[in-house]
């Protein structure tokens, strides 16, 4: 008499329907029976019958009462043939029943918009009976779910993190799959993410040349990093930075070595003896600045002062009448071959 043979069984979640596949080389199967026993005391904890000729026995969800983690169970199946002949019980096949693990990305949600060029995936794995995760693989797909990259098998699951670099704007899918020590398969499924970061204008700070003769690509940067490095917080109002009581300093990332032209635009600049703009060397010995003086008749004159070591090189604007705080003031300064030019504009009209 033949007996069924059960395929090897991975760990199963008792909260899910599970199929137990087997083969049988005898006659036509009329029905099959299953019995699941605790391997420690041989107590049968589940038995059932399936009245079909299928060689997959459906074990319904929640049919197993698992109370102790680590308990090994064994499964046996026997079949009844069409002529009501019963086979012997199959050899035992061991299996673990566990609670369905939690396995998902903890830092990424569906349709998440990511404003950077990489995505760092963090996984959350939790299993009530402490079934350990054994391995995990991370996947990255394009918008049509074509695989772009994978991590390979990670056996070190003490840190469930992985980073995919080099992403440009667009839709991607990420996914992770894993397996527990007793063979339970976990899968996050496809999680859609949207990489969206502003690619700055780079045509002016990164240049490429294809050198046809030497067979190489030449590159050159013109990256200018100039920013305020101090601790002051600035207020911005209607597109203006408020520097009435504060000073904005740029002291690195550039060097005005010879000729230059500067344009400064502002408002609320009816002030006397205030240095609105200055540009000096690090010792503040050489350079130039823009200041102003208000006369008794309330007219204001702006002046450009350049230090030359002996006396000052001064250029005045004409007197300006009735300057309101809302009037737009613009300075245009040019230093060419040590000669300065200075123009003042009120509401974009040059003062002459």
């Amino acid at each position: 008499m033949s007996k069924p043979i059960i395929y090897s069984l991975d760990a199963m979640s008792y909260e899910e329907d599970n199929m137990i596949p087997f083969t049988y080389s005898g006659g036509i199967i009329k029905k099959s029976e299953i019995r699941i026993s605790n391997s420690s005391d041989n107590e049968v904890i589940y038995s059932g019958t399936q009245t079909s000729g299928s060689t997959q026995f459906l074990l319904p969800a929640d049919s197993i009462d698992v109370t102790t983690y680590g308990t090994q169970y064994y499964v046996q199946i026997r079949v009844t043939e069409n002529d009501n002949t019963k086979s012997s019980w199959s050899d035992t096949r061991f299996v673990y029943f566990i609670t369905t693990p939690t396995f998902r990305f903890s830092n990424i949600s569906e349709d998440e918009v990511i404003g950077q060029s990489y995505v760092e995936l963090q996984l959350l794995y939790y299993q009530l009976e402490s079934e350990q995760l054994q391995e995990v693989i991370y996947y990255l797909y394009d918008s049509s779910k074509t695989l772009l990259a994978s991590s390979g098998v990670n056996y070190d699951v003490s840190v469930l993190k992985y980073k995919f670099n080099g992403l440009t704007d667009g839709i991607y899918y990420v996914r992770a799959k894993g397996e527990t020590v007793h063979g339970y398969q976990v899968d996050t499924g496809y999680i859609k993410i949207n990489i969206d970061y502003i690619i700055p204008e780079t045509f002016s700070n990164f240049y490429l040349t294809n050198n046809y003769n030497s067979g190489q690509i030449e590159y050159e940067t013109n990256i200018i990093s100039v920013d305020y490095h101090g601790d002051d917080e600035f207020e911005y109002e209607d597109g203006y930075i408020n520097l009435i009581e504060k000073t904005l300093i740029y002291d690195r990332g550039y060097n005005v070595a010879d000729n230059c032209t500067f344009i400064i635009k502002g408002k609320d600049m009816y002030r006397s003896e205030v240095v609105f703009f200055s540009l000096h060397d690090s010792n503040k010995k050489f350079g130039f600045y823009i200041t102003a003086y208000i006369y008794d008749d309330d007219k204001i004159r702006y002046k450009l002062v350049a230090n030359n070591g002996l006396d000052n090189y001064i250029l005045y604007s004409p007197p300006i009448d009735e300057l309101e705080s809302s009037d737009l003031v613009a300075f245009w300064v040019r230093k060419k071959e040590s000669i300065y030019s200075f123009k003042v504009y009120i509401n974009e009209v040059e003062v002459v």
Partner: protein
Amino acid sequence: MVFYGTTFIGGLYTAQPTPTNAENLTYLTLHGGKYSDLYGTKEVESQPTLDIPDEWNWNTIMRADFSTGTTVAGNVDWLAENVSVVAIKRRIQGTFDWYTVATYPIEVEEDFTFKGVDRFNQSNVTYEYAIVPYDLENNPGVYSIIPVDSNFDALFVVGADATYKTFHTSGNIDTTRNITGNYNVPLNDRYPVFFHSGLMNFDSGSVDGAFYDLDEACQMVEDVGYFYKKGLMDFLTDGNPKVLKHSDGRIWLIQVVPSPTDSAQNTYKIRNITFNWIQTGEHDDNEDMYWANLNDVEEIYWDRI
């Protein structure tokens, strides 16, 4: 000394003392008002205007647009104190994997300005090059990408420190793809069954070329070229990996195998160098190029898994 302008002192643009020369102006302040724009350029020939160009160019010194709500006055929002490295990467347009060409450590703002060459590029492709800042924890920032057509006109053998070239009209590459496997024809079938055994799958081939020395105008140097060809033979036999590339787009990471020859073509003055090679990796794989000593970018800056 005081020069008088167009009117007496007190008039417009009068009282002009000795012009002053000032260099290395590196300390700028803005104060005493509400400001919308600050712009500096090295350009001094244009007519006075308040128009501030949107585009940066080589003359631009700084440009702060305070309407953006920031004090950034450069053309990037990177600060040297927040950036450890800037990487140059490339990939063929339309593909995913980036190859890191080079990295540049950043300590001060001036380190952001650099130039370099990528000698291991392929011909007949359009590349995307990216410039990528890494933060202090070596996380990559945004990829600023520029496309470029990569083309050249010859056959190149490129090593870590030298490049040799021969025009494709005087040089060629023939290859064989090497795989392992066998086939048998079952008795009851007309066609054989192929058994693929092992992962081996690489090209090998031979190169034959004139390899003449070229002058600065890329014209052939009219002499026997002994020293040039001796240099090439020493280069081919130094035992180091190289990149072999052709103007038609073929490219390999190779090792020259014994033994290159230098043979006369009818007359002793016209000589060809011939050598055999095997492919030892991928020219656009950072790991392969690193171990071939053709790229020194550290693993932390590789993108390919």
